[in-house]
């Protein structure tokens, strides 16, 4: 079954948004098909458009041209609320800058995702998954009372709380030191394996990309596939 599919995606940014005078062609016809349960890394340098691609694939934004599907649904047909409804419970995110709600405790951050996914026992499953990421003693802490690594662990717990089918991760270790980053990646892949989630990971870190089943290079606004073996 196809989890994510994109056909001839083009994304242009108009001069007013980019601050320049010429239309910027960020993506120039991206084609992609990701099957359920696959792990895919999208590698690219700064400004290559990988985050833009991620936001299109997750339905956070719409392409200038082309069409794409998420969990079998054509995103071009949906308005913003429709795309949000599609994400609820099916899509999880891990961001480089964690993006935890600052006024909410670790438990509440995770619970909210579970609740939005329609989870009935949101609190107990949130507690459970926070225990899985080793934060059972930090449940009531607010984000600013946690270290960077802990915050990212909360973010991972939140991403998996709604039992998503697809997980998008944007430079998940970008804000962490090497040791913490490695632990976080271990955790991410472990949960991913346990839940059989489709993982699409965007990074500039080739070593991290190697851990995925498929590695795609984003160059000049187009994707180039590189075959590789799972370690």
């Amino acid at each position, binding site marked *: 079954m196809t989890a994510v599919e994109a056909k001839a995606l083009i994304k242009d940014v108009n001069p007013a*948004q980019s601050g320049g005078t010429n239309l910027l062609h960020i993506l120039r016809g991206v084609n992609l098909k990701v099957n359920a349960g696959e792990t895919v890394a999208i590698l690219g340098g700064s400004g290559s458009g990988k*985050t*833009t691609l*991620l*936001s299109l694939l*997750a339905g*956070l*934004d719409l392409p200038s041209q082309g069409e794409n599907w998420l969990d079998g649904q054509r995103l071009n047909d949906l308005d*913003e*609320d429709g795309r*949000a*409804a*599609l*994400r*609820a*419970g*099916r*899509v999880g*995110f891990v*961001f480089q*800058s964690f*993006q*935890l*709600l*600052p*006024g*909410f405790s670790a438990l*509440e951050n995770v619970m*909210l*995702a579970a*609740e*939005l*996914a329609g989870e009935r026992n949101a609190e107990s499953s949130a507690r459970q998954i926070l225990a899985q990421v080793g934060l059972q003693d930090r449940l009531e802490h*607010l*984000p*600013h009372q946690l270290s*960077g690594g802990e*915050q990212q662990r909360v973010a991972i717990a*939140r991403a998996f709380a*709604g039992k998503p089918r697809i997980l998008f991760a*944007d430079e998940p270790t970008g*804000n962490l030191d090497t040791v913490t980053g490695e632990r976080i990646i271990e955790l991410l892949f472990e949960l991913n394996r346990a839940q059989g989630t489709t993982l699409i990971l965007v990074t500039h870190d080739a070593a991290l990309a190697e851990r995925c089943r498929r590695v795609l290079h984003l160059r000049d606004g187009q994707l180039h596939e590189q075959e590789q073996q799972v370690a």
Partner: protein
Amino acid sequence: MNKRLALRYAGRRLRRITSAGELRVLALAIFIAVTAAAAVGLFSDRMRGALEAQSGEALGADLLVTGREALPADLADAAEQLGIQTLEHLNFPSLVLAGDNTALAAIKAVSPGYPLRGELRIAPEAFSPAATTRDIPKPGEAWADARLWSELGLQTGSQVQVGNLKLTVSAFLEYEPDRGVGFVDLAPRLLVNRQDIADSGLLGPGSRVQYTRMFSAAANSLAQLRKTTDLPPALRWITPSEARPEVRQALDRAGKFLDIAVLAVALLAAVAVALTAQQHGERLRDEIAVMKCLGASRAFVLQAHILSLLLLGAISTLLGLLAGYAGQAVLANLLAGLIQNLDLPAPALGAMIAPAGLAMIMLLGFAAPPLVTASGTPPMRVFQRSAENSGSTSVIWATASLAVLAILGWQTRELELGAYVLAGSAAALILLALITWLLVRSLTGLRHRGGLSWRFGLGNIARRRRRSIGQAVALGLGLLALLLVSVVREDLLNAWQDRLPADTPNVFLINIQSEQLDPLKSFFAARGYDQLRLWPMARGRLVELNGEAVTADSFEDPDTQRWINRDFNMSWSDYIGWDNKITEGEWWGDEADGQAWLSAEEYARERLGIGIGDRMTLQFGPEKIEFTVHNFREVQWDSFQPNFFLLAPPGVIENVPAQWLTSFYLPRDQRSLLRDLMTEFPNITALDLEAAMNQVRSIVDRLVQAVEFMLLFTLLAGLVVLLAAIEGTRGERARETALLRTLGASSRTLQWGLLSEFAVLGLIAGLVAAATAQGIAWLLAVQVFDIPYGLSPGLWLISTLAGAGLVMLFGWLSLRGVLRTPPTRVLQGA
């Protein structure tokens, strides 16, 4: 997305309110507005309830006819024919002597059967248990109320003297149902028997007697009486619903001030709410983007945030209502002196609806629109901070304007007054913005001079020019409220008081007969008062204007009709006092003696439409005299000097029956002079103005205290605006500060930089507030109170210093945490 989840989310957000400083300020603003509105609303409601609940008892009858002239004799007959019970009583001010003590009292002379409704309560001695009675004082006896009892140091059996009447105090008057119809009743009461008055010499010409006839019967008989009686214009009917005009008037006036105070609080609070909601909306954008990533719809986001706002508003409103409940008790207590014998009902819970409604208007009108805009934040913002929806600010402005109108309609009983306040505020706001813009612009030159901290601070203002102007205007608004409440009010009061010299007369003598002039002058000369100026006074009625007969019907304006119907108190002199200003023509000298000229007060010109050279014929008893208007004067009526609408030169009205009057300043330690005077000249009425002025002053004091109490809320609301303006930049400053610290700036440099920025902003706001406050004060002084008012350098100094000081203090309090937080934490966005 269900509603329960939205509610849960809203509840969670609310518990973390401490993490959002601006929400605390928002809650505080609503709390203050609701408290002020509830205090005034509940109090006014109680007063209205009390006044409406008044029955005939408040009049002592079901209907009254009252006036300053003797009542028509046939009125009693007409009433009796209709089977209506009726009685007459007299009311007049007079000095009462007891031993060495004197007091100005309101004498009420009653006949058996008084009152027709309700009952008197008396006690054998002061403050001992009282009992109701159907009696009245026997001839030769008097009943005194508590104030007179203490002012004169009375005991049962004490002798008091009123005019040449000597009376024995036989009871303590605890309660009279119809207390308080007319100003004179604010003085302490002496109740006497009507029979005694005939011999007292107190009712001579020129005395200030209020004649009242009471009626009691079924409503239809009373209606019949009113229909068949043609009342002279100087008299009027009073029904129970019109009782207590003095209370109504005083409260009406106080009510207006209180309303303005509440309106000012509401508008200031609205500014604070709008500012904080704007900041809150901005802050929420990141959170909303994340929620949308997680699958939340815009409707859910909006629902959750509006719910959390409403929950917060509900808590603030509830607390505000509780505080307002206490506030109305303070108001009732402060104004209790004005409300004798008026049983205030308990505060009605229904009166809490309006303040709660005000909170709702503020929440939906000022707080919700920025949230609506923020709820449109696209989820892309999680990757791209600049991603924003194209939410138009014009919607926010339109909603806010509607909300301002709603507040005006909601909070002011008089739309015109509300419109004035709004127009004034708008003008003040524009003025504030304009001056601030000029000042901020002028800072550009100073940006590159001075130390690092100074340049950093000033640079902040210049870099964020629009925001700085907004902040300074908000701060200026808060300071303006502070200044108007404290300094300007004091200034205006002093300016008013300074108008009256220290030796302003405090005693008036009236009722002086022509043959008493010489003995009276000698009496005063013997006591060191040789400058006594005596004014003759004759009563004349206007009968012709330029040779044509005039009556009240010749004029359409009811005020003129009433004025024409009265006798004019007219005097003659070749002297004009400092409190009279000639506005047209010239004052006369010796050449005028015997000329039938007239000097008229401007009021006469307005009412009669006369000019110089017009002829006015006045009738004095049987004699008619035709005068030619020679000049016009403007009289300062509150100078406490004898003054007259019409003056003629000496030698014209000499043969007309006249009385004389005078006024003089009597120092407190020479009050025994009054006693000697009363003994020697019993017919002369001495009006103790000091007592009257003190009564008026005490009423005004209480009203001022009540208004001041409400202005306290204005002051608090001003401070909240200030707080909101500072909190608004907190996040941005925190990031900047952290960044600069990582770049190597020392905490000290940053601290001084921030302080110098705040100091300059405060100075600007203070200057602008002072300029606006002076403008408003000048307008009030010249246009409303008609008193001179000049520049007050103290105000500018206080304002700028207070501005700088307050902003630095609040800024420091708000940001000291930021300066202590490790920069990494700030930069991580935690």
